[in-house]
């Protein structure tokens, strides 16, 4: 069962490396275009990334906790919470008791911080604390503790920094390009490099547009994997998957948004903190797998070991007969993206509304590459039908109309 954790970690490392390569490519081509030296761009990209990483590594938790206005509690403030955390600490074999923080917010969420297991902290909103019973609380805390135990916090922080660097570089480059273009083509008059110049420009622009999107897709992919793994570990620690499942159910029924979360910190929460007002949490998740999917997998577990989770996971992925057709179309693939267009928080640069369109096109392309059929419903919803979906009609989960595949 421990091999699965390792296999998952290898995959995360590969994805992270992919993101790093993306960053270097972007730096190289931007450098090539702006200073006619790819190495220069590379170095600038590395410096920006290095600085941000250092800050994130040494000050990340403090910043995050301060931004979310969390207050540290002691055993006497909330004995039950303290006990539950200690229970999960024992079950996971963590050596040091993590600090516990509470955010006074009616939203239902929790997250883990700490660059290593010795400097870890668990944070939970007062809303969630009030709503969960002991078993459910245990499931949620188990999930957070396994983020610490599996060192997801550090991995995700480093990925977030890389994503941030890519976005910043692309954003500034776009700006500079735009303004220099307005000023009458400073570059074209100067060097007159001809074809090579044009190719570099084309590649540079392409990278500027695609890199942030690709980096985000990778980031979300890593994040979703870690979420599933943390669910599995939580079930393993508590030996009671139902606790986490029913906690997730309660969370998904709530529509309150966490005020103090932001884009970069989203993957650290138990569930995606950006849910549109009035919409159930299960629909708009991109950093997190659909909650319904997570609940279904947890409930399908025959035991509590990681391999049981894996089995349930594969069952849910295989999807024949387990889920109703509408649910299959909605989140047919485990960790599948939301049916509707990516949520607004997935767009770090708000100044470019066409980016939303571009992101949609890219993700459509990705789905098509995986043999997903697209069915347009009359209500405007795009349904993505997985290749193994056998029936001839599919019900739109949005308006309820039946569409033929």
């Amino acid at each position, binding site marked *: 069962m*421990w091999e699965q954790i390792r296999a998952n970690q290898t995959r995360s490392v590969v994805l992270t490396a992919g993101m790093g390569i993306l960053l270097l490519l972007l730096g190289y081509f931007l450098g090539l275009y702006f200073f006619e030296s790819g190495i220069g761009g590379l170095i600038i990209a590395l410096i920006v990334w290095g600085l941000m990483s250092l800050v994130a590594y040494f000050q990340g938790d403090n910043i995050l906790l301060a931004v979310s206005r969390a207050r540290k509690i002691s055993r006497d403030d909330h*004995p*039950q919470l303290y*006990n*539950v955390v*200690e*229970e*999960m600490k*024992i*079950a*996971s*074999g963590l050596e040091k008791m993590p600090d516990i923080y509470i955010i006074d917010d009616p939203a239902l969420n929790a997250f883990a911080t700490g660059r290593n297991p010795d400097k870890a902290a668990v944070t939970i909103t007062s809303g969630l604390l009030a709503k969960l019973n*002991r078993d459910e609380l245990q499931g949620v805390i188990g999930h957070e503790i396994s983020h610490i135990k599996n060192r997801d916090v550090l991995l995700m922080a480093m990925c977030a920094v890389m994503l941030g660097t890519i976005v910043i570089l692309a954003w500034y480059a776009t700006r500079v390009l735009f303004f220099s273009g307005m000023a009458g083509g400073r570059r074209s008059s100067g060097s007159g490099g001809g074809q090579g110049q044009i190719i570099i420009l084309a590649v540079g622009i392409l990278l500027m547009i695609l890199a942030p999107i690709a980096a985000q897709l990778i980031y979300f992919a890593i994040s979703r994997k870690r979420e599933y793994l943390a669910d599995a570990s939580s079930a393993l*620690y508590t*030996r009671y998957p139902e606790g986490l499942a029913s906690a997730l159910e309660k969370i998904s029924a709530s529509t309150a948004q966490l005020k103090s979360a932001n884009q970069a910190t989203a993957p650290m929460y138990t569930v995606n903190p950006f849910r549109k007002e009035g919409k159930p949490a299960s629909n708009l998740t991109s950093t997190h797998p659909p909650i319904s999917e997570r609940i279904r997998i947890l409930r399908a577990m025959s035991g509590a070991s990681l391999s049981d989770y894996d089995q349930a996971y594969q069952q849910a992925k295989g999807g024949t007969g387990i889920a109703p057709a509408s649910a299959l179309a909605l989140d047919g693939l485990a960790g599948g993206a939301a049916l509707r267009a990516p949520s607004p928080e997935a767009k770090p640069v708000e100044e470019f509304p066409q980016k939303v369109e571009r992101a949609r096109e890219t993700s459509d392309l990705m789905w098509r590459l995986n043999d997903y059929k697209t069915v347009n419903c009359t209500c405007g919803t795009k349904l993505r039908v997985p290749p193994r979906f056998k029936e001839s009609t599919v019900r739109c989960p949005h308006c309820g109309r039946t569409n033929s595949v």
Partner: protein
Amino acid sequence: MVAVYIIIGIVAILLIFFIATYNGLIRLRNQLRNAWAQIDVQLKRRYDLIPNLIETVKGYMKYERATLEAVTKARNLAQSLASGDVGARSKAEGELSGALARLLAVAENYPDLKANQNFLALQEELTSTENKISFSRQYYNDSVLKLNNKAQMFPSNVVASMTGFKLGEFFEVTIAEEREAPKVDLT
């Protein structure tokens, strides 16, 4: 000359493998011992909590003397066996768990008691301690499994047998479902 280098290389690789595996085994064994010590810590905590609990409930549960006495007796027996052999001890601890569960179940019938803040705090502490006991056992057993796997599987079993590594012993659970909060009422 090349052959010599190759042999030296192979020996070096074997040596590194040996050291790494041995250290891994030691780490697992220490983890095991630590896990075992953790169980002890939680059991002791339970001994300490019980007199408080009895003191708190005594006034409310005048007609449950038998239940209270059973808990006290089981506690004293378990404590006296604490340094004894593992089998007898785990049996005594199991009985204590059972007696405590009965007491907490009976307490459900006393609304006054359930309104007592002191009792509620103690109940939470006891529930949590019971959980911690079973979680530390669970972690201990997970650690045993890891150590035994490593000590029995090729190639690390070679290192284990060369250094005379002993296998870990699983902690047998004597009570069927003790981690569940007591819900049964015994009539």
